[in-house]
């Protein structure tokens, strides 16, 4: 529906002003903060996307994914039997097999997400992108995070972008697809809105802000614009598409602010791992520290919490 794209207007100063307001929201304390933090933990996609990933550190990550918070802390909060695990584990395609095996060894069914389609730059031919997706699915990934070609957005080739994402969707098959928009490289908030709409129209299950490797990753103005696009798409078609901010979220306070923002812009139904994920690696450590503080009253030493 190219007609929707031509009428998109986004006023950047107004969005930035709205984002500034968010930082002034009252912070949560006590039991409510702990509850929101645990909710955030269940929405995390625990990620390791480095050049030096090997089976050993992927295995360590998968075990941490199964036990994100130390047992006795969860017992103190009376949440030890609620099955608190992270939302997914996110790795490069070459490490998908290791992740799947490690999770099987740990004895849980946390999904494995794989990045694909020329991550992180997306500047590879479409055939190799599709081949990469198919292989990742074969190796056992049940979620695929694809990357769009920013050049198509910057040159306004909306038809081309739609076609590309649609073919990736077909290549994913049964797997759940997240489309990474790489918003830091799209140039303007209006482009972010338009790219979100095209991605949703082409069949994405989630739209994701960034790869985590750009200069500017997930910021509140970009998140607000993407969430408004999701809401508009829901009003037009009745389909709920999920949202994932990724990159640059390091503190527990930021995680809670993102959750509050989702609640304000999209509503409570979006606050579940099926419709909201946080792409992060060191965030889990900070959340665990905050929970440790809530339970014991003091901050932990480095060895007191398990390394991810």
């Amino acid at each position, binding site marked *: 529906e190219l007609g929707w794209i031509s009428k998109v*207007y986004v006023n950047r100063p107004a969005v930035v002003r709205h984002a500034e307001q968010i930082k002034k929201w009252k912070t949560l304390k006590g039991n409510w903060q702990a509850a929101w933090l645990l909710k955030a933990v269940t929405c995390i996609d625990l990620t390791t996307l480095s050049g030096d990933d090997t089976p050993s550190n992927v295995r360590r990550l998968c075990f941490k994914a199964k036990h994100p918070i130390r047992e006795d802390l969860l017992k103190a909060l009376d949440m030890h039997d609620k099955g608190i695990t992270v939302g997914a584990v996110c790795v490069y395609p070459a490490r998908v097999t290791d992740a799947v095996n490690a999770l099987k060894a740990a004895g849980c069914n946390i999904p494995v997400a794989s990045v694909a389609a020329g991550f992180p730059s997306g500047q590879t031919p479409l055939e190799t992108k599709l081949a990469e997706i198919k292989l990742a699915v074969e190796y056992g990934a049940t979620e695929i995070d694809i990357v769009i070609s920013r050049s198509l957005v910057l040159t306004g080739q909306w038809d081309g972008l739609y076609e590309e994402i649609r073919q990736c969707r077909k290549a994913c098959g049964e797997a759940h697809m997240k489309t990474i928009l790489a918003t830091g490289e799209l140039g303007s908030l209006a482009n972010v809105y338009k790219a979100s709409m095209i991605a949703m129209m082409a069949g994405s299950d989630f739209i994701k802000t960034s790869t985590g490797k750009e200069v500017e990753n997930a910021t509140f103005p970009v998140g607000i614009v993407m969430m408004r696009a999701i809401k508009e798409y829901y009003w037009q078609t009745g389909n709920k598409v999920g949202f994932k901010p990724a990159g640059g979220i390091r503190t527990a306070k930021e995680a809670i602010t993102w959750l509050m923002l989702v609640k*304000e812009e999209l509503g409570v139904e979006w606050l579940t791992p099926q419709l909201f994920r946080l792409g992060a690696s060191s965030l889990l450590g900070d959340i665990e520290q905050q929970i440790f503080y809530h339970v014991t009253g003091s901050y932990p030493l480095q060895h007191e919490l398990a390394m991810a």
Partner: protein
Amino acid sequence: GNTVLVLCPPEAAPPLLYLAELSGDGGALPPGALNVVTGPFPDLCRSLRAHPGVAAVTFLGTTQVPEVQALAWGSPCRGPRAGWARGGRVVVVVLDSADLDGAAAAIVGAFPWGGCVVLAQEGVLAPLERRLRARLGGLRVGDPLDPGTDVGPLPPAVPHPEGLLGVPWPAGSSCVCVSPPSQVFQPLLPPGDRFYPPTLITGVAPTSRCLREPAAGPVLVLLPVRSPGEAVAVASGLPLTATAAVWAQDVTTALDTAERLPQGLVWLNALNLLDPSGGCAGGAEETTLEEALREFGRPPWEQPPKPEEPLSPEEAVPDPEDTELAGAVLAARAAAPGWGRLPGASRARGLRGAAAALGGTRGTPGGNDGDNGRLQEALLRWAAHAEQMGGAVQEVPGGRALVTRRPLGVVGVAWSWPRPLSLELLPPALALGNSVVVVAPPGAAGAALRLRKALVAAGLPGGALAVLPGGSRGSGAKLARHHPDGLWLCGADTDWTSALSVPRVWGVPERVLGASGLDPPLGATRELELRCTRPHCLWVPAGAP
């Protein structure tokens, strides 16, 4: 530098009394600088008015207190000076190239207490309404001290909006009371009838009561318009509006609409941003900080008038007939828009031409060379002013404010001082784009006619200047009853009922033009500039950090 006495009704008293108490503690203000008196309102106002020690009176709060204003009214020329009431509604114009999410977020986030009227272009009416409903549904009503509340109770002594909205609706309109929806956990409306849920009203027209009388309380009215031009027309027709906002991404349309809106402060793609230093719109409707300071201060050449001294000798001078006045004001009103919209350079050319034409008539019988010379000089000086009246650009939080001054429209001058009319009073009003209707004693009629002829010959429209013989003390009231946009009283007087219809009334001090033979005093030029024009502030948000 003034001492202040605040009169307020008992319901509004607690915060003011607390403020007075705090300012006395620790010597923040010397004793007697800030005084607060509460009590039965009408009687206190009467005593205030009669007290000789009071120099100026101003009003705060809603504007629907005509009885109070009537009681405290004094002549603009003597007795306490009356300031204009502050406050009014916000008009938000949303055009089809607007960021609808941004507009809805700003409207609901700001939620101005005086009420808000949203004029949306038809193409975007439905999406905007849906977004407004979604956001209003998320507002929490509750205890104002609880940080989680968005909307508190109605202020004391404010009439409950239900009375205003309980009027039967025309068929097909909907009054939506948006209470907190059940999906979000929110406490129910707290007990007590001072809480009112955020309300969105659609399907009404400018004839409906909720538009004619602003309701205090969280009430939003949504009206469709067909085009930016129609939005400007509807916005101009709404009573009691103080500020406006234009939402459009198309820069040409946005700037053009903002330019044509009559409200004194217009935000572009923003809402309710205020300059904490009070620079371009010191919280009041249609005044800037400079004018607000003039309300509470007196230039050195202006003597405080003695209350009991008669302004001008009682003369039995016949005033012009109502029909004559009506005709003159009508002609002036017809000429004013065209003349006011010309660029300053064109107006300057007209005035210079008139000055040249006057120079040619030197030495004719009845003309006084000295006076003619002064008039020519005034015309030339104000022609130069007209060319240079640009405005100011002020840095404000989040952007820039372009502050310009616009002509008032039709300025009526009622002269009843014993000396003949000083024609140098007229060039300022003309140069800055107004049309002038003068009522003055017949003594200066000849010179006035010559001036008028010279102006028309130089290209001004015929209605731009009209001089009618008259000049009794009541001529001010007579002129006011024909609704000019500004009224200058030189010795004449006017009563409250007539003056209510005129937005700007000025009691002209005798020395503003300078004593005979001397130059005008320092600061008089700026005073005249401010009195012929009203401010227009366009708030343009600058790029994001």
